[in-house]
């Protein structure tokens, strides 16, 4: 699969790597280069006496380079991919040299070993004991949390802007101690409310009530259905063994990476990838958590197509998933055959999802024939029935969206809730373009 320049650059770990990668997309830098269906490789003359051996696994975009850089992917990997994207004619199809062959073979062996590893027996009694201890801790934490929430509503929320960061930080830490990291994150998010914004109260109360719903639901967990139990538990921070998840039958499809977003949290980089299944019409969120300097297991980039089997986390609204296996795919002829027709359908879908999971987060949707319009000095997206939803104020690329669509209706991918959405991509000339 040939990635576009923008897609390649979105794999770069930082701006400096992008720039260095672009500089290396120059045929003069490469002593040798080659490609076949599995891999792309090249030898780049660096400052050392021997050229660096750079290789890219094209079946599931992965990089390896003999350079000493700690960045991943390194500038050589990016440069090689960029050169291929810019001047494909320079790469002749040939057999892989030994050093590429070795790496590709090792990658296949590793995959096999992973499967074997999963077969090891587990001490179920010890596991159950640990689980029970944790649940007790969580219950105690939640009791404290509910008292704290009640204090807030008893005293009124108007005094909250004056409270310092410690107010939120302390309760968040308490939840970490109670091994309820999900609740800890929700409290941090509450504290991150912009109290200077006019009308902050409504958004704040929405988040507070979600927190309350999760906490209160946990106290009644035996009375709710099994899938909702899983939702409550994962919102609190209970994890699911991903290896077990991988054992389940997944959803196979050609998936389009609609968008990607990364944020730094303490020592972690949290990467969100929103996927859309072209045939199943399903959406998925793939999360990756990488410690600083750690290599991502999956290199996804906006607008990329992958043939993959995804295993969804058990939920009343299946959304978060892991990739069981994948290979990069060519751009299909018919990219979007089924999607939402307009805002009314989105509203109905949201109602359905909310009825199943009242404390869910925003989700992406692919909607046909939306056009950006200016109404009352604000940007909106209008469907063919004349229905409007606001574009979120933090959306920075409105002019790019306008330039791509020219004011004509276009199929768009959006993410948001209720009546506010952020465009993440649009189809232009039958090509998906991230915005």
């Amino acid at each position, binding site marked *: 699969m040939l990635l576009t*320049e*923008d897609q390649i650059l979105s794999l770069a770990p930082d701006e400096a790597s*992008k*720039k260095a990668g*672009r*500089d290396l997309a*120059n045929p*003069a830098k490469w002593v040798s280069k080659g490609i076949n269906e599995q891999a792309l490789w090249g030898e780049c003359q660096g400052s050392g006496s021997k050229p660096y051996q750079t290789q890219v696994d094209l079946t599931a975009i992965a990089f390896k380079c003999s350079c000493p850089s700690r960045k991943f992917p390194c500038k050589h990997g990016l440069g090689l991919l960029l050169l291929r994207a*810019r001047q494909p004619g320079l790469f002749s199809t040939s057999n892989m040299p030994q050093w590429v062959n070795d790496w590709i073979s090792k990658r296949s062996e590793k995959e096999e070993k992973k499967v074997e590893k999963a077969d090891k027996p587990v001490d179920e009694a010890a596991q159950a004991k640990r689980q029970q201890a944790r649940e007790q801790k969580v219950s105690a934490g939640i009791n404290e949390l509910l008292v704290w*929430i*009640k204090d807030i*509503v*008893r*005293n*009124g*929320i*108007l005094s909250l802007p004056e409270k310092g960061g410690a107010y939120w930080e302390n309760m968040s830490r308490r939840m970490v101690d109670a091994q309820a990291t999900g609740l800890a994150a929700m409290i941090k998010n509450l504290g991150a409310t912009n109290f200077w914004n006019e009308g902050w*109260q*409504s958004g704040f*109360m*929405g988040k507070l*009530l979600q927190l*309350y*719903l999760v906490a*209160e639901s946990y106290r009644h967990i035996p009375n709710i259905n099994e899938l909702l139990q899983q939702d409550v538990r994962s919102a609190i921070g209970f994890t699911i063994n991903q290896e077990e998840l991988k054992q389940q039958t997944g959803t196979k499809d050609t998936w389009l990476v609609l968008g990607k977003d990364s944020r730094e949290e303490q020592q972690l980089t949290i990467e969100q990838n929103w996927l859309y299944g072209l045939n199943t019409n399903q959406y998925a969120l793939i999360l990756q958590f990488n410690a600083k300097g750690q290599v991502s297991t999956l290199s996804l980039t906006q607008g990329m197509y992958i043939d993959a089997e995804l295993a969804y986390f058990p939920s009343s609204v299946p959304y978060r998933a892991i990739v069981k296996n994948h290979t990069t795919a060519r751009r299909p002829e018919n990219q979007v055959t089924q999607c939402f027709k307009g*805002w*009314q359908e*989105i*509203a109905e879908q*949201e*109602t359905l999802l*909310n*009825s199943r999971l*009242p404390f869910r987060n925003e989700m992406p949707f692919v909607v046909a024939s939306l*056009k950006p*319009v*200016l*109404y009352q000095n604000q940007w*909106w997206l*209008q469907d063919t*029935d*004349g*229905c*409007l*939803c606001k574009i979120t104020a933090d959306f920075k*690329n409105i*002019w*790019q969206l*306008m*330039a*791509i669509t*020219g*004011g*004509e209706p276009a199929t768009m991918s959006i993410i948001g*809730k*209720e*009546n506010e959405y952020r465009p993440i991509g649009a189809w*232009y000339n039958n090509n998906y*373009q991230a915005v």
Partner: protein
Amino acid sequence: MRAWEHIINAAMIGTGKPMPGNPEIPGDIAAIVDVIEAEELLDKESKYLQKAALIYNYRQCGFTPLQKHDLLLNKAEAETRQYCSDTAAGVLNTILHEDNLSLMELWLTNCSKSGLLALPNVLPVILDKAQKDAALQPLVIACSGNRGAWLSRLNPAWGYFSVLPDEELWQTGNPEQRTKVLANTRQNNAPQALEWLHQTWDQENAAAKAELLKALKINSGPDDLPWLESLLTEKGQKVKDEVMALLKQIPGSSIVRQYEDILSRSVMLKKEKAMLGMMTKISISLKLPASIDESIYKTGIEKLAGPKSGISDEQHVLYQLIGAVPPSFWEKQFEATPAQVVEYFDKYASMMTSALGNAISQFNANDWIPYLLNHDSFYPDFINKLPLPERDKYLLRSLNRGIPNVIHTALNCSQQWGTEFARVAMQQMANHPYEYNRAFFNRHIKLIPTEIISQLEKLEAKDINMQSAWGKNREHLIKLLGLKQQTLKAFNA
């Protein structure tokens, strides 16, 4: 939704205080609210939170989008020209990542010449660039098509697309726009520009007058003289200086005639018989008349040469005067052809030859240039007046003779350098990598021909300490030349 508003109001006050009225509970959830209210074991806060959570979820599920059918249709007109190729678009993307305005200008120039358009997705970036760099605006307008014009109507920051008719801009524009439109009009219709300025002259302030007069330097000629001569009585010194500068470049103006009058009495070609009449002895006498009109010293002619000049005050005055009259004056004065005039000056008053060169530049006497090309002096103003092969030969010869500032002057070339000159210049640049650094090449990449890429590898700085710095510059230069080459190839230029 009223019920949600009530929830927010109650949250602001706090449940510890009396609630402001009762919420208007929608009928769909009224029964559930009643159950919550009836629960005796629940405290006040729990009841509030449960009702709030219920109403929150009801609100989320009941969302209906706003509907408007009367919004004005606002879409870009279809393009009448084709978009550039994907290859060309890819090159532009790389240029934009490099943030190189010089290459961007080259790309836009070629795109515009080919009658093609930039792809829509790149328009916001190039429109932003042109907002900051006015020189790019005509090119960006040309390459943005109808979609660019449509975007500019939506975003006031890109308002430079809306071009008013020249005359309206002259009447109503800001000082910068007026100066620009006057200069453009002067280029295409010189009398019209003069007429416009004449009409508004009395309403302009001194600063504007001085600024607008500069536009008259373009295509100045005898038709300007009557009005310009009348402006010599202006009060503002800056205005007067500008008028003087204009008059000094128009043959036949009172100032030029005054200079010619002095020179006709000061510089004379003498032909005397020698060797019993068998030979003619030629000389040029350079002597100012005993009394000259002192007013010339108020027109910019300096009276004193200065202690370090190495020439007398009289020679200095004559040098300036020779440089300030049209070269054709000497054809009459010496009764000779231009070639002979140059030869006479060269042989019999060589220190004045370069003054003649200055006069050639000042009065655009381009047909005189060939007679001075082989002389020792280097005339920077000649380079854009020569045909390209001659220009490059002239630059190369001057560079090889070690004349200082040739490279600096060559940066003013309006067209790309020839390969041979570029190669020799590049060798000098290699020796001074901190002066000719990456920023320098970013600015002047337009002038450097792509043909020298293959020769750059062979060039090294003579000083071993400079080789590393030059190596980095060279790498950067090769990258820029590569992009330039790709741009030209993408448009078959």
